[in-house]
């Protein structure tokens, strides 16, 4: 055992969190990822840059995955993937094809020794050592909500919606076009990179009172914050970003719709989908993670919105009882790598030996066990 442990220490498992926008990569038992890189790759065949998850055929995804991982191993981590152990953070409801392709690339192309797939929401919670929380992951492609009680994910209460970083970018673009700030051919200047830069440097989530005042179109509108002159990178153009845009782009997360799918509604509905006994505990532990949750003012606004809905919305008034106050967990690290940090903690324990999918097991039938597949998850079948 001690010998084995020294071997372990020499080769710490690699922890990968491949997000839609950014990939967090590093080694287990370290406090922060070595690098956070855009999930983009330069194709070896044509030399063009491309997002990893933009693909048409499965073989294309496979080739892109090979190129992308190759870059990670030899440009960023500087380790040979051969005979390594891996911890991969995955969305519980993620696509099967991505996970199968990733496993195939790792085991067959890179010859790794074992891969441990871990559910991302649970791992994020492990950075708190708290057993119960509603984990809200605001990513690039989507926002997903998973209530966890006593370390068990309540799968039936999982909710997700398409507003994330991408939706915000589109909103910025839409508003800039509507205001006539960007016209004609200049639309091409608004690349994802520029939009993201505008988002993170100028935009914020406004307060509840101001948002309410804005909804009331007859009343007096609050004065928007000062505009910003923004020089677009790699071009001579300077645009003025109106204060209204800075304040209101994040409103699409809070827009009241009939579908009841704004972020506060989604959280409340998710809590309502859990059994009655656990609801109070969940209300008192909301944990925001993901790059999208790092924007200024989001937590304060979300709290006020939730409290407001609890008191004024008919449906929630009937179903939530007693004096409830929403509480939020402070993240120990920057939220965009909370998931990764959970994976790093997990990879440092013996779980990596107990629960990993070993190469031999994979090569036997070329399939990754999945909870949604009844061939693997037959606990209820009585066997």
């Amino acid at each position, binding site marked *: 055992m001690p010998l084995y442990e020294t071997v372990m220490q020499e080769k710490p498992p690699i922890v990968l969190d491949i997000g839609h926008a950014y990939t967090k990569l590093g080694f287990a038992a370290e*406090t922060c990822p070595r690098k*956070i890189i855009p999930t983009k790759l330069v194709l070896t065949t044509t030399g063009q840059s491309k997002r990893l998850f933009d693909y048409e055929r499965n073989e294309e995804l496979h080739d892109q995955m090979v190129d992308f991982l190759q870059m990670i191993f*030899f440009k960023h981590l500087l380790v040979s993937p051969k005979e390594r152990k891996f911890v991969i953070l995955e969305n519980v409801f993620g696509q099967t094809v991505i996970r199968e392709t990733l496993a195939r690339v790792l085991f067959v192309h890179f010859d790794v020794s074992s891969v441990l797939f871990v559910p991302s929401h649970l791992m994020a919670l492990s950075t708190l050592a708290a057993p119960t929380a509603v984990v809200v992951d605001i990513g690039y492609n989507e926002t997903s909500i998973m209530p966890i009680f006593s370390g068990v994910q309540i799968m039936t209460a999982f909710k997700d919606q398409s507003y994330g970083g991408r939706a915000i970018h589109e909103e910025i673009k839409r508003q800039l076009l509507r205001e006539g700030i960007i016209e004609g051919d200049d639309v091409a200047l608004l690349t994802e990179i520029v939009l993201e830069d505008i988002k993170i440097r100028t935009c914020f989530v406004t307060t509840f009172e101001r948002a309410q005042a804005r909804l009331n179109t007859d009343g007096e509108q609050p004065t928007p914050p000062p505009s910003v002159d923004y020089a677009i990178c790699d071009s001579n153009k300077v645009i003025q970003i109106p204060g209204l845009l800075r304040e209101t782009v994040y409103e699409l997360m809070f827009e009241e719709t009939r579908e009841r799918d704004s972020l506060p509604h989604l959280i409340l509905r998710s809590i309502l989908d859990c059994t009655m006994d656990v609801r109070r505990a969940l209300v008192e532990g909301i944990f925001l993670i993901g790059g999208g949750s790092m924007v200024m003012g989001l937590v304060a606004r979300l709290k006020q919105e939730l409290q407001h809905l609890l008191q004024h919305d008919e449906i929630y008034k009937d179903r939530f009882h007693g004096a409830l106050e929403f509480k*939020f967990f402070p993240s120990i690290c920057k939220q965009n790598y909370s998931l990764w940090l959970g994976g790093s903690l997990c990879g440092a324990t013996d779980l990596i030996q107990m629960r990993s999918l070993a190469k031999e097991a994979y090569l036997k039938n070329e399939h990754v066990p999945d909870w949604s597949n009844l061939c693997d998850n037959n606990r209820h079948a009585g066997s």
Partner: protein
Amino acid sequence: MSFMQPIPVKYACSCGILNPINKLFFCRHCPKLRCGYCVCHEIESHFCSNCLENIPSSEARHKKNCCANCFDCPCCQHTLSARATTVAVVRKPDEAKDKEAQSGAGGESGSTTPLKPSSVPATKKMYYLSCLSCRWTTRDVGIPDQGVATGTWPDNECLYQLRFNSLLEYYQSVVLQEKQDRQEFLRRKSPKQHKFPSLTDRTGLTVSLIRRQIGWNEKTLPKSKPISISPTEATADVEQLPPDIFTEPLNLRQVTTIAQRLSQPRDQPTAVGNLYPQRRSLWIKRSLRCRQCEHNLIKPEFHPTSIKYRIQLFASHHVPEVVMVRCEQPLKSGQKNAIVVKITNPTMYDMTIRILDALPEEEEQLTTEMLQQACKIKEEAVTSSPLLRAAGITLTRQNSTREIKREVNELSNTLIEPLESEFVLSQRDDSKEFDEDIQARSEIEEPKFIVWRKGNKVLLRLQFTPEATSKISDEVVLSFYMQYTYVNTVANTTEKKEPTTQALYSRLFIQAGAIEKE
């Protein structure tokens, strides 16, 4: 060789991917073409690309793949350079007094001219880091100047290191307990059944009894209890938006960009004032290994400043290079045309080359068989035939890495006329490059498809017809097989020492251009 533009001639690698010859490798042991996709990449050595210092892998791991001396600018990711300044040193009181006394003794002029020619200027060299690209300096963010240029720059600490450590300890103990519980459960569930009854069982001398007699402690480890940890408390008071955000103008120069934030993954500062110099990431030298036979294809020289190789098996050193020269007529669909290609023999032996439009049957069978074999799991590879057994041994040694081969994409849309005869391409001879005289071969009757020949180079005329169905501005792609004899100087088996001559096949695709208008 075409420079800075796509190369029209592509070779099909043994894995099925098309590549220009300068991206291909040639494994002499297999002997097959290999590309960057189907070889095994390995890390040869770590080095810093700025100071070109070689760093052993254990040290690199310890330093987290960062150079100890070089820093990157947090603002523009350029390399920072150390700049020296001279700073007047504040003297200690007694020293100053000494000086005063000296100057007092010297005369009254001491107060008016503080620097006397005899006194040494009390200065010291101090260093700060500065970016030559964006003019960022360590002074901008208040890092004090250092007395030594390298090695003493402070690293910013991880704020939650202690919490992380306790979390780590906690989870390790939880998992350990779970593991022990499971082992205990399994032990109880299935009591060990020995094939032979143990002596101690009969005598009633149990293991634990013996241990106790010897004076050892109990074999069963004391059960580990998970360490208790205080979970993070959720709070109701959350960070509010600063009220001045609605009134104060935003200064974009003070806000960091996403690239600047992510270059410091731990802190991700939003204000420019919190940027810290980042240690520069190391680079690596790679060596490439054939997946089939595990021989090195590329092995660089160890020293970072050297760009040479110890082993270099580039395809362009072993496989005849085909360069497209011109098409004789404008490309039109369904019209007979001819293309002139130049073939160069890079090896030290004469080559016999044939151009075919399809693989000979037995060869084709062999490749399809190999393809099938590669697709199968190679467990029962060892068979009775000694040759295959040898192959089997290499396969078992190679432990997996059975990359699934793919069929070469059928891109060709032309009919090619194979050359009626084979021809010999003479060896490479650097001295002949400068010969002006007509070559000695001229008396031999040349086949009529040969346009020109000099030394190890030959110009060929290949006739082809683009498909009648192809439309205007369609890309015309020619495809043919080139058979060439390759003299392998590497002895595959121990018995044979002399070089063997092998006939090898390469599939080539030439993008001749687009169909022109009528």
